[in-house]
């Protein structure tokens, strides 16, 4: 789950990371009041869960309350990469002498959290990694020992920070690591961490991604989820416990298991079609779940055919077939349907589908099923 900049920065601040004074606004009037309160120059920053806000015109400097209100008015009406801007953050403008990057990720190969710093802040770290990888300094963190002072010193020295900033950099790095562990993050990032003309370090932007699997112990964070940032179908799917990702194609896919669902999308492409979605209905295939999934798929108007690919392992194919037929009773699909059931009791399952009154195309192999679905979708 991604958090907004203002949410991330508030959590960083709780762990001792200095951030600019600021306030959140959802109307131009609130933006005006916030700017008045802060005094001086402010930055008006759109709060959307995508990168590239600045380039899209979603971040503007304002000299005073009136200008802040005008910028807020423009930005609050914008869509950035398809997402509507509902809130802006009004932050005191920082006096920027240098921009640094500081972030923590889960290093899957090292099986540890890794902290990265770079003297090239303010641009995406992936870009720096591609163009100038030597600029990124990295330490991995032993979960039993935590982030150690010598490690933050290595980073500070590695990115060429002046000696006078070593201590404050160390405190900020520790604060960021505390936030990372306290809130079960899979990513925590300050980009840029700004050094002001006066030599102070300040987290001007912040980003955090929370591990969905850990939300059970962070009820307060779970409430911060921006449900508007999800596609409506993805939100419905999440609430129903289904794993769904909308894609651009025309063939709806209903599959049990994530790996098999991806392989099914791939084989559709291989035979010249385009998948409309990723959908994993998970273990078992009760009628209710199948119906919910089918409704989601059919709500997408670009879907011209649906492919069911179910591997009956512990779940028997005849049970799955009954689930599918019961779901049809409820949903009444109007596009061609291709079903491939394989595994335990596959013959019984296929016979049930063949005997039904629905015009269902059955297939034995995945390759065959994919080709039939591609043909049916036109």
């Amino acid at each position, binding site marked *: 789950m991604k958090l907004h900049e203002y949410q991330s920065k508030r959590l960083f601040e709780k762990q001792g990371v200095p951030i600019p004074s600021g306030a959140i606004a959802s109307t131009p009037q609130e933006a005006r009041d916030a700017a008045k309160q802060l005094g001086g120059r402010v930055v008006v920053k759109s709060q959307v869960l995508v990168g590239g806000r600045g380039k899209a015109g979603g971040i503007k400097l304002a000299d005073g309350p009136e200008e802040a209100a005008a910028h807020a008015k423009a930005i609050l009406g914008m869509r950035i990469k398809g997402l509507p801007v509902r809130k802006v953050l009004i932050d005191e403008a920082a006096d920027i002498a240098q921009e640094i990057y500081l972030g923590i990720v889960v290093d899957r190969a090292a099986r540890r959290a890794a902290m990265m710093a770079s003297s090239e802040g303010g641009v995406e770290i992936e870009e720096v990694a591609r163009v100038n990888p030597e600029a990124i300094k990295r330490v991995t963190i032993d979960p039993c020992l935590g982030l150690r002072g010598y490690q933050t010193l290595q980073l500070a020295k590695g990115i060429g920070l002046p000696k006078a900033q070593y201590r404050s950099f160390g405190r900020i790095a520790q604060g960021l690591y505390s936030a990372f562990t306290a809130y079960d993050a899979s990513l925590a990032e300050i980009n840029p961490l700004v050094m002001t003309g006066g030599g102070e370090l300040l987290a001007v932007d912040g980003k955090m991604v929370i591990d969905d699997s850990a939300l059970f112990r962070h009820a307060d964070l779970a409430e911060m989820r921006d449900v508007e940032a999800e596609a409506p179908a993805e939100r419905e799917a999440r609430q129903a416990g289904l794993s769904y990702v909308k894609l651009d194609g025309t063939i709806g896919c209903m599959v049990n298991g994530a790996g098999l669902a991806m392989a099914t999308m791939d084989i559709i492409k291989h035979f010249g079609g385009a998948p409309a979605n990723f959908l994993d209905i998970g273990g078992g295939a009760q009628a209710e779940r199948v119906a919910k999934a089918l409704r989601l798929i059919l709500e997408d108007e670009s879907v011209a055919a649906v492919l069911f690919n179910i591997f009956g392992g512990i779940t028997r194919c005849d049970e799955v077939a009954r689930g599918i037929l019961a779901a049809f009773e409820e949903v009444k699909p109007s596009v061609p349907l291709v079903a491939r059931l394989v595994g335990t009791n596959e013959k019984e399952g296929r016979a049930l589908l063949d005997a039904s009154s629905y015009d269902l195309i059955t297939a034995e*192999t995945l390759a065959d099923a994919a080709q039939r679905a591609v043909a049916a979708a036109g």
Partner: protein
Amino acid sequence: MAILVDKDTRLLVQGITGREGEFHSTQMLDYGTQVVAGVTPGKGGARACDDRVPVFDTVAEAMAETGANASIIYVPARFAPNAIIEAADAGMDLVVCITEGVPVLDMIEVRAYLDHQGTRLVGPNYPGLLSPGQAKVGIMPGHIAAPGPVGVVSRSGTLTYEVVYALTNRGIRQTTCVGIGGDPIIGTDFIDALTLFEQDGETEQVVLIGEIGGTAEERAAEFIDEHMTKPVTAFVAGRTAPPGKRMGHAGAIIQGGTGTAADKIAAFEAVDVPVAEHPEQIADIVEGRAGL
């Protein structure tokens, strides 16, 4: 021979009195696996699976009483880290964790502890281990596999079944099918499993099933090039996956341009590991590579 589990494995089930635990324990017993003990805190003294398995309160007690040498974990995600650590602390050699949705930071701690103890973990978020004809440890459907010379290692569940089923139907049988799990932080990885298959006297070929996310496949390709004498055939799921979206598994996500199927396929092809375009092609390639 087989890797990790065989007919001599004496299995302990943590969470045996839960719905999933009891169901799958019965399936494992019916397959012929020696399920010698179960653990559910507070239910010591009871018996599970129609009176076939004694239940203990702790792993240490169960090991002392029954000589269990491997443990499988079916407990819910929030209790799984504790269960894994308990098994390692009791001196268990092999711990397998089926549970999906264990928090990543918990797994980082668990991994650090297990490395320190020298315990082998397989999983979490995975379908288990199956050495056909010998032992089924997990939730894989036993009847889709048959004993033979091909090792299978995979990050996925039903996709593994699909591949194993296709292999078996073509008369290509298996030594052991190993699920390694779909999470970002796991125990046994591709390289560990490949090492075991390379050492195993009966395994003649290996099938590796990868997916998008992370760089485990790239590292496996490097390892195959440097250390494997046995032929490996690969498959990578997620060629059509968009960047930035989690495809079901917690670990299946393309981030910052890394973890794409294209990179993984290129890494395998660069070291002459053939990559199947779809699951059914795997059997064609394997068949063509040996006198099976």
